């Protein structure tokens, strides 16, 4: 960090004040403001020890202000010409403050407390009857504080818990946040960790050819350079060898572009002729030996137990030249021109392999040279891994011998067992539940203590008697006591509304969902606060210090 910052600024006593123009100088211990007008009396020489906090206006506001607040409530408002200036000063002040380690920790004027209390009050009424929260000796940086405030603002459940426990004096700030480290960390790492992959276009370096003049223009961006290095290791090697020893970067790329142009015209003989003239060009025109080596290595690694059945549908293997268009003129070349031919399928395969591999190197390396070096390093690392993987080879040969066993020589297999299939497991268990409760067989006639024998005539007579009783008397009035229907309804409702029928049947619904929303939220809040308390309670066991004892009793 620089030891001092000097910027043009205006000092204002309030926001509306036009401000006194001058120069602001910030050093490690103090800041000094000297007005341009020597006659003005607005000189400032303030030590940073007096400054307790700072406020600022956002980007895009009318004025770029920085407000340095004092302990006693005085403040110094400084207006800058532009936001970058203001940001520099602001960063300086911020760093200073964290370095000085604001003494006395969280005082009552601490921004976190005030902000926390401010929106607790907004949310749930005044907490004036609760004692002031305990003062902790923790030292927080502004970024951490902002992090916490943001978390509290975003998560209302967390806010409620915070208010209940911290402001209520049961837990301290430190303890509350101790269990939530992961949340705080997450905030910092909001940047996406994924890199953008390489583009999947093969012909991005198609030149713009001007039909009238004989010039061809190539457009090379760092992105394209990265792709070229990833796809063609020979070019990469050549770059590292030639630049900056033999030729400048511009010359290198010019030569490369010429080579590409020759390839695009498909004029192999012309390419050979050019190569004979210029040996550097020859490097680009010949086939890429490194690619060939790589391909050979990859083929050795292919698993021979791959199932070729799946390939049967794509029958392009048996077509001449694998279904690609065949250019007949290629066959008439001499042997000396062979190295200069480049086949389309090879290019395609290599390009696809590179794209699928993804971005091996972080794109933020701007320089082409460093990109090339980084790519070479990764390739070497891969090579090293390959060579040292003897175990893999052995494992592979084992697997091959296992898979390709001859069917006739296999031993007898155990008869396979049909899998158990229960259509709806809950139906089955429900029915078995009834079986478990009821005694088996007809011995369930426990209600009749004695199988008394009765004469049939007696039975019929008694029945007839009762019927005539009803006929004569008519229906009893009232035929039920008053409280009986009420009891019946209670029993029925209990039976119907019991959850034993619904538990486990519906994977998406739950008992909680059937409650009204307010009730459900209260229940959930109660359960989370109880969990929180329990966590802290059990963490304070075994009670070894007085502090832990106090904490235990408090929870």
């Amino acid at each position, binding site marked *: 960090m620089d030891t001092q910052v000097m910027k043009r600024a205006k000092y204002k006593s309030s926001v509306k004040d036009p401000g006194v123009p001058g120069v602001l100088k910030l050093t490690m211990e103090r800041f000094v403001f000297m007005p341009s007008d020597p006659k003005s009396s607005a000189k400032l020489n303030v030590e940073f020890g007096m400054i307790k906090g700072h406020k600022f206006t956002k980007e895009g506001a009318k004025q770029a202000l920085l407000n340095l607040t004092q302990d006693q409530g005085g403040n110094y408002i400084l207006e800058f010409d532009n936001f970058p200036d203001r940001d520099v000063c602001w960063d300086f002040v911020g760093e200073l403050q964290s370095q000085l380690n604001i003494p006395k920790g969280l005082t009552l004027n601490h921004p976190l407390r005030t902000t926390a209390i401010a929106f607790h009050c907004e949310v749930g009424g005044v907490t004036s009857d609760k004692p002031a929260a305990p003062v902790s000796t923790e030292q927080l940086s502004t970024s951490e504080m902002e992090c916490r405030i943001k978390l509290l603002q975003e998560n209302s459940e967390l806010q409620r818990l915070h208010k209940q426990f911290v402001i209520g004096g049961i837990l301290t700030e430190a303890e509350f946040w101790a269990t939530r480290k992961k949340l705080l960390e997450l905030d910092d790492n909001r940047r996406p960790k994924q890199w953008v992959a390489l583009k999947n276009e093969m012909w991005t370096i198609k030149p713009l050819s001007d039909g009238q003049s004989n010039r061809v223009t190539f457009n090379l961006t760092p992105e394209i350079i990265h792709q070229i290095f990833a796809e063609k290791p020979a070019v990469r090697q050549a770059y590292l060898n030639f630049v900056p020893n033999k030729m400048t970067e511009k010359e290198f790329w010019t030569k490369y572009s010429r080579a590409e142009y020759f390839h695009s015209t498909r004029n192999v003989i012309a390419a050979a002729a050019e190569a004979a003239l210029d040996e550097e060009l020859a490097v680009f025109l010949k086939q890429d030996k490194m690619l060939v080596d790589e391909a050979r290595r990859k083929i050795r690694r292919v698993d021979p137990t791959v199932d070729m059945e799946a390939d049967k549908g794509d029958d392009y293997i048996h077509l001449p030249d694998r279904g690609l268009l065949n250019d007949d003129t290629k066959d008439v070349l001499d042997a000396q021109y062979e190295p200069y031919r480049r086949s389309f399928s090879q290019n395609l395969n290599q390009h696809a392999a590179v794209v699928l591999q993804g971005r091996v190197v972080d794109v933020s390396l701007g320089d082409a040279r460093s990109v090339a070096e980084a790519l070479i390093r990764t390739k070497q690392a891969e090579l090293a891994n390959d060579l040292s993987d003897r175990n893999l080879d052995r494992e592979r040969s084992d697997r091959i011998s296992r898979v390709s066993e001859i069917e006739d020589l296999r031993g007898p297999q155990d008869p396979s067992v049909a899998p158990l299939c229960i259509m709806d497991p809950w139906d089955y268990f429900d029915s078995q*539940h009834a079986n478990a409760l009821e005694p088996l067989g*007809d011995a369930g006639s426990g209600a009749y203590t004695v199988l008394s*024998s009765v004469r*049939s005539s007696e*039975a019929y007579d008694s029945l007839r008697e009762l019927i005539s009783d*009803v006929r004569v008397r008519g229906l009893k009035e009232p035929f039920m006591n008053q409280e009986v229907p009420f009891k019946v*309804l209670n029993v029925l409702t209990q039976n119907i509304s019991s959850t034993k029928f619904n538990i486990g049947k519906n994977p998406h619904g739950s008992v909680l969902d059937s409650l009204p929303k307010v009730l459900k939220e209260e229940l959930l809040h109660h359960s989370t606060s109880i969990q929180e308390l329990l966590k802290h309670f059990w963490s304070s066991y075994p009670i070894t210090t007085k502090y832990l004892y106090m904490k235990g009793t408090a929870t």
Partner: protein
Amino acid sequence: MATVPSKLYSDDVSLLMVLMDANPFFWNSVKSNYLFSDFLTHVLAFLNSIFLLNQFNKVVVIATGYNSCDYIFDSAALHGQNQRAESLLQKLEDFLDKDESLCRENSVNGPSVSLLSGSLSMALCYIQRVFRSGPFHPQPRILCLHGSPDGPGQYVAIMNSIFSAQRLMVPIDSCVIGGQHSAFLQQASYITGGVYLKPQLLDGLFQYLATVFATDLNSRAILQLPKPVGVDFRASCFCHKNTIDMGFICSVCLSIFCEHQKKCSTCGSVFGQSQAHNSSGPDQKRNTF
């Protein structure tokens, strides 16, 4: 039935077939707890309330006796008359006389079994006739007020009636009054989509009936009615009519036997030789439906 103007025929008109248990031996065995006269009172009040729900509701009561079953009340036949209870009771008495005359035993042990299968079949025949009566007919359902224990000998007939009811889409509701659950009625309600209930407080039987069994089929879709926790799916064997858990099943006609047979008595297919102690012809399966 007389033709009814179609716009008066709403979709909640129902035909309620009540199968009332009139087994004298059963009622004799429970008379210390619950009198048949109280039972009749509650049921008559319930039937009156059914008529109050919709002017086109129809009720048919079938008595399930020990030796026979018979219709004792048909609201369609009593068109216009108000003497419903009296005629029902009169017919019930006549039915009991007839039943007694058919009785061949002098004394019977315990509650014994009533002819549920018979009354179920009669109800289903009546319903089939109603279905063929014309485009406007009420939606039929069956309510079994039953108390006598299950007779395994009636297993096959009851299962056949249950499946016919299922085909006709007629739900069978069961209200079990006796001391124990009835496996047949549990299965009946489960298979046909009806309600099975065993009331705890028999003093409030009318309240049970009015709350659970009075609603028509359309309204049942929006009501939550009591469900039994489990259904007893045990069957009885075809040979001895015992309730069994494990048995042998003919793979052709699915008849159930409790011991190994040479030939299936239902379809006549011959079973193969059994190995040491495992049988290969009829598959040995756990007897659950």
